[in-house]
């Protein structure tokens, strides 16, 4: 049968299988290949909190969603064009999101009576045999059986052979999207360099899947997605936490400071600790502390000693760090606190995304405890935001909170990475002994109201710091009422003055003024862009502004918001930024909230905004 190659503008694929089926790896490898082919893309890995949830159950389904295309891609997409379902549970939990007429690639071997029972299908009602799959293009493949056959000569045990199933599926999809196996082969060669039998089995499975797609009669169509029209330059694929790490390392080099990272493992921030620990040849010192409090405290200790002290965590850890962050506010030392947010409260939804720590970051400490808060909006944006957090911390002598979230941390996108020489050096200075013999005043301030960074080991600067209220200028302990109020106001003013050292707020896309402003922060960037584009194409005067700086807000924010009749604030929480905006500017901003551990879908926000415009 002749193969037809059709051109597609954009495709959404969802890989779904059991936690142990290797769907994250399959999705990741297909993403790498997609990126290299020049498509724009966005990903959304979605996996259970349990490392190995019971095999075959609905709770154990792990998914990886990829949206790629020759146009700009802003979100991982709402409805799948293709669903890969490795077992009955994967089909059951994902079929409702496959678009009508979409393709479902099924591993038939994942639908035996046990799998059906675990997926809570009636045992006598196999979805492969009834009308469940009506209206979809269905490709049924006995993946387990064919994988075993393809590597029958391998000496591996059955369990290990079955682990190659994901390569079989990957091979199948690579053919279908007109790709070669080169990138994957390169990856396998590197990963299993010292395990020739495993390497051989994976390669054979990959090849078998690829060849099956080529020869299988039901697969008539082959698709090609042309490269996206992205700005010229050199690109790579990047995930949020990796971009964050590179931003921190770059900042430490540009500041000429040693980077110290104190952290305690927590999902979804742990990979920051992992990646930084690999960059020891950049002088990075990582310290896996005994708990979250020790992690932030060690970072403050390192900052006191003249290093760039950084700590990273997720919501529950931020709660534990609160008291030490308050100390950093009193000590007026540089510190970056990264919070990769996840569903809360308490343990909440550890592997799911949420934006529900904004109020904690802004207010979650005892006393009047102001701290700059900035947020990254996309995986690649994490790079710049990380550098910016370090710059603010060092130049304004203050702890800074950097908010990311699970969706950004694990999501991937193409990144036009900069040349190191194009990134400007950042200024930092340490206090020195006064030449005129005048005593050193640890709480004397510059025009930014920042005090000097005086590090132990320097002659002539002996002083004591601590959490008890200080007398202005001298830094001595003071219980004087007027001094306390003065210091509270001074610390507040210092943080507010940062607004003079950050850019004004821009309109990201759409109209500069008009009927409705979508005001977002963090990981809603993509969906705000996509919805704004859709609505402006329909003729509505909608604009999108996305806040990187959440404290202080950009100087012109009020003026910008007032250019629109309505303000909608979409958030993956129960309405947090909207409270702050209403409080600060007395504007009737309208919340749009989703609190399901997943990003906001294009169609839901689109419908909501359209309703307001009608």
């Amino acid at each position, binding site marked *: 049968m002749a193969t037809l190659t059709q051109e597609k503008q954009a495709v959404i694929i969802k890989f779904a299988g059991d936690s142990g089926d290797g769907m994250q790896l399959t999705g990741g490898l297909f993403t790498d290949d997609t990126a290299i082919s020049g498509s724009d893309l966005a990903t959304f890995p979605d996996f259970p909190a349990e490392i190995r949830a019971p095999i075959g159950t609905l709770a154990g389904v792990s998914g990886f969603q990829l949206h790629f295309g020759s146009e700009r891609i802003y979100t991982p997409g709402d409805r799948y064009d293709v669903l890969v379902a490795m077992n009955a549970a994967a089909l059951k939990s994902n079929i409702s999101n496959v678009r009508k007429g979409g393709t479902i690639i099924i591993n038939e071997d994942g639908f035996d009576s046990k799998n059906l029972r675990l997926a809570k299908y009636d045992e006598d009602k196999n979805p492969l045999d009834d009308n469940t799959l009506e209206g979809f293009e269905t490709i049924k493949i006995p993946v387990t059986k064919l994988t075993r056959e393809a590597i029958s000569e391998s000496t591996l045990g059955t369990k290990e052979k079955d682990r190659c199933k994901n390569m079989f599926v990957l091979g199948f999809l690579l053919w279908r999207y007109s790709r070669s196996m080169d990138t994957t082969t390169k990856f396998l060669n590197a990963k299993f360099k010292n395990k020739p039998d495993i390497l051989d089995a994976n390669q054979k499975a990959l090849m078998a899947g690829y060849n099956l797609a080529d020869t299988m009669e039901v697969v008539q169509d082959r698709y090609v997605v042309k490269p996206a029209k992205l700005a010229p330059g050199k690109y790579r694929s990047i995930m949020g936490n990796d971009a964050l790490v590179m931003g921190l390392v770059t900042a430490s080099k540009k500041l000429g400071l040693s980077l110290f990272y104190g952290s305690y493992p927590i999902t979804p921030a742990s990979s920051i600790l992992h990646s930084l620990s690999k960059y020891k040849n*950049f002088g990075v010192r990582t*310290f896996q502390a005994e708990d979250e409090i020790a992690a932030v*405290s060690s970072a403050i200790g390192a900052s006191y000693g003249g290093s760039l002290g950084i700590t990273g965590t997720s919501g529950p850890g931020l709660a534990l760090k609160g008291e030490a962050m308050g100390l950093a506010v009193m000590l007026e030392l540089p510190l970056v606190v990264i919070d990769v947010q996840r569903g809360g409260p308490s343990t909440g939804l550890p592997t799911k995304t949420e934006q529900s720590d904004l109020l904690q970051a802004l207010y979650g400490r005892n006393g009047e405890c102001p701290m700059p808060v900035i947020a990254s909006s996309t995986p690649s944006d994490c790079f710049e935001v990380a550098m910016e957090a370090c710059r603010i911390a060092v130049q304004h002598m203050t702890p800074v909170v950097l908010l990311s979230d699970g969706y950004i941390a694990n999501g991937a996108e193409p990144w036009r990475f900069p040349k190191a020489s194009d990134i400007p050096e950042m200024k930092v200075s340490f206090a020195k002994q006064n030449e005129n013999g005048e005593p050193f005043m640890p709480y004397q301030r510059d025009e930014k109201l920042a005090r000097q960074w005086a590090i132990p080991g320097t002659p002539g600067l002996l002083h004591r710091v601590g959490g008890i209220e200080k007398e202005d200028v001298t830094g001595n302990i003071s219980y004087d009422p007027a001094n306390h109020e003065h210091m509270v106001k001074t610390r507040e003013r210092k943080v507010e003055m940062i607004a003079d050292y950050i850019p004004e707020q821009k309109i990201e896309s759409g109209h500069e003024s008009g009927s409705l402003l979508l005001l977002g922060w963090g990981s809603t960037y993509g969906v705000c862009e996509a919805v704004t584009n859709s609505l402006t194409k329909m003729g509505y005067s909608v604009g999108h502004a996305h806040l990187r700086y959440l404290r202080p807000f950009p100087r012109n924010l009020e003026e910008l918001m007032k250019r629109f009749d309505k303000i909608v604030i979409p958030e993956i929480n129960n309405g947090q930024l909207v409270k702050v905006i209403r409080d600060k500017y007395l504007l009737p901003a309208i919340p749009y909230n989703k609190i399901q551990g997943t990003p906001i879908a294009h169609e839901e926000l689109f419908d909501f905004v359209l309703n307001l415009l009608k």
Partner: protein
Amino acid sequence: MAIDSNPNGTPYTLKAKDFATDQDVRWCPGCGDYSILKQVQTTLADLGKQPHETVFVSGIGCSSRFPYYMETYGMHSIHGRAPAFASGLKIANPNLSIWVITGDGDGLSIGGNHFIHLLRRNFDLNLLLFNNQIYGLTKGQYSPTSEENKRTPSTPYGSIDHPVNPIALALGSDATFVARSMDRDTKHLKDMLARADAHRGTSFLEIYQNCNIFNDGAFEVFTEKTSKPATTLLLESGQPLVFGQEGEKGIRLDGFTPTVVDLRSDGFTKDDLWVHDDSDQLKANILARFFDNPAVNPSALPRPFGVFYQTQRPCYEEMLHQQLNAVVENLGEGDLDKMLAGGSTWEIK
């Protein structure tokens, strides 16, 4: 504020008072902390320490006010966490002489976790635990080292908590230097401070300190001239364990069981006694269990003072920097452009 070195960089010879700040010391009159402060200032001067290379890091509590009174660098941090601040600081600058000041509440209750991990990691710094067996700053509640059945504002019918044994906990955490001293024996305290400083690794020194307001006389039985000889045992490595008014009593080991013998009547000589060896961890653990209170139990073994145990193990900051250097040697200095490009890239023209 003192200028701590000549403009040409040569250090002044300093006296104890050069380590004192101009701040009023705000401990209660008669507090044991005064003596400790004095001995620390004297010892630093005697050891020729330079103030700008010395840092005192504390948590919260009466003892933790210590840094404000030391003309060095200092950080009065948050409750229980001083070890963590000190760890980060030591990594940032391994050349500093760091002294962590803590108390029984700060170090063993709220900061118990950090206490364990500081000791096992073995940073090269000194940890001074002022043990007064009471919460002073919060006005007299029982502490984790208070004896059982203690009546305090929070335990009007007597406490039911079993007390921590700080020396045993330190040994259990694999500390590399474990010692005990007391505020009232200034000579012994100075000697212990100097030996703690000389030890490379985390030196743990427990100091019995009298809180004359909320727990006066808690250690009287060990500090008063009349009772001290019979209730205390001075540890000297290489010397037999002898105590008593005229050194008439000794400790023998019967298997793993320590027994008190009378050298005048029991037919033993000093040659029959347990000879202290501060490199013997097993026996240090037995000494740590000399913990009954002679004021309550007259047949209690005497309370040991001195160095229980010391050993050499590589310091955390040393290994951390060795590893950094080894990676640089192996991979070369990090190249930002290589890092940014990562594994695979593509170009759009």
